[in-house]
């Protein structure tokens, strides 16, 4: 019988160097939308802005969030690209919205401190 071998955890030096970006959404006094709607729109717009190859290199991951605030994990070299990609969002569904970056951290604990402020 073949033994099940566990894949070893990747060495820290070989892992992607990441940053946690905390963003906030301003709906201009309209009703705040669901996190799911924001995620769909943001993914679509980031893919359009970065392209398929760029999106892959940036390694975008939505860690946690609500309709108003959230945390995105990004590759270190693509932080500026993702910030500008989020800036280019001007509508979510039928509502006007503007996304802005509150802070960037290398540590998820510190990013959560900024998120909960």
């Amino acid at each position, binding site marked *: 019988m073949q033994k099940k071998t566990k894949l070893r955890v990747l060495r820290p030096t070989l892992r992607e160097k990441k940053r946690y970006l905390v963003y906030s959404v301003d709906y201009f006094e309209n009703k705040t939308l669901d996190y799911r709607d924001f995620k769909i729109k943001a993914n679509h717009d980031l893919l359009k802005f970065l392209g398929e190859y760029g999106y892959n290199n940036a390694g975008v991951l939505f860690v946690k969030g609500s309709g108003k605030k959230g945390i995105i994990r990004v590759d270190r070299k693509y932080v500026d690209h993702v*910030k500008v990609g989020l800036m280019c969002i001007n509508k979510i569904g039928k509502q006007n919205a*503007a996304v802005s970056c509150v802070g960037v951290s290398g540590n998820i604990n510190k990013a959560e401190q900024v998120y909960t402020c």
Partner: protein
Amino acid sequence: MIDIVRCEVDDEIKSQGKKLGFSKVITCGDLKICEGETEDKNRNHVSNKQNDVLMNPELKSLKDKVHYRVSGLNQVLAKLAVTNDVAIGFGFSFVLNVAGVERARILGRMRQNVKICSKIGTKMVVCSYANNIKEMRGSKDLLAFARLIGMDGTEAKSALNWKRNQKKVRLI
């Protein structure tokens, strides 16, 4: 940090500017701003010492040539801008209100203009150039935009802290 907008600056826009991290929000009317057109007209704008900023010289540029990108600015215009103290502006609203291939084209032309300006030493300005409050963006985000189009850290900071020099008015 300072932001330049196209609309009138009222209390709502001032408070939004403070929320976004700007110390001051200026409207177009407070400065002498010319919007970019073809290269010949851009040369006239940049040769006029009374102008403060030439905003987005790549706006109405003609089709790209086979061997180079037509971005509305070249080394001659950049040198004229330095001698006449005219800054070159990069407004984010033109990128925001356009999509697809057109957006990619504008970003590419902005990149080329930044490369020319930083080589010659022309002053650069980055702003939201918003038509209304909904188009205003944060100061940190505009810094990221400046770095994306090719400025380094110090250039990006000085582009957001641009101040107008007092120009001599010639009395006739």
